[in-house]
């Protein structure tokens, strides 16, 4: 049987001290890519089993919180032969800088991948400074 390595093993989500979830089941931290270009910051998170109706994105102060809810599949027929990955909800939080244009944040979910586009506020965009001789 093949072993799963750390990079593909699901990581349990970090839970704040003393805070309990009301939903039952385990929570995992989705793998994410975060990158930016001149215009936007992009966040792409893998949440297989989640669609646009079962994702919850919140931005409070400067904390972006992602929640993805997964329907636990009905018990399959037969006996469990092997189980290499767990199934559960997703949760992850990020601190983002204030210089994001909050009204224009766009999010899509497709094939279990959440894609967020966070447009940079005008003040954060790099500006070319022309150098003149003189």
């Amino acid at each position: 049987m093949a072993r799963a390595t750390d990079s593909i093993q699901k990581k349990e989500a970090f839970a704040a001290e003393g805070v309990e979830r009301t939903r039952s089941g385990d929570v995992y931290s989705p793998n994410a890519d975060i990158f930016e270009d001149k215009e936007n910051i992009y966040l792409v998170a893998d949440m297989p089993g989640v669609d646009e109706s079962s994702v919850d994105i919140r931005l409070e102060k400067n904390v972006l919180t992602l929640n993805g809810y997964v329907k636990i599949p009905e018990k399959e027929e037969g006996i469990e032969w092997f189980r290499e990955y767990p199934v559960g909800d997703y949760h992850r939080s990020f601190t983002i800088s204030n210089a994001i244009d909050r009204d224009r944040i766009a999010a899509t979910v497709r094939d279990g991948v959440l894609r967020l586009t966070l447009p940079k506020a005008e003040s954060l965009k790099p500006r070319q400074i022309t150098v003149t001789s003189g």
Partner: protein
Amino acid sequence: MVLTLQKRRMEDWNPWRELQNVQSEMNRLLGRFGYPETGVYPAMNAWKTEDDVTLTAELPGMKADDIEISVAGDTLTLKGTRPEEDERENLTYHRRERLAGHFARTIQLPFHVDADKVEARFSNGVLNIRLPRVESDKPRKISIGK
């Protein structure tokens, strides 16, 4: 494909995990050259009954057409390429945790399956495959003659 270096805090350093990381990176690199090896990606869950096997795998971000499932006798091979995220120019990465690249994995099944009756569904990044046992491989009751 470049091996990604990851910074870890001293107390997180686990030599066994480093070895596993190197192994998985090597598997992925080799997979790109089409070596017919058994990789470790994707992780799968499986159930079996006397008459069939059901497998699930999580392949977020892929399209059904990009997943190659092939069955031969009592083996199942799952292949595909997870797309490189963006071809946009001038990107600066802050985190890179999602895997991209070619993968190939072969599973040995407990019996021969009927390739014509295999059912595969792919929804929200979750692949579900049902493989029924081939009739000729089902045990047959032998009655004892008088």
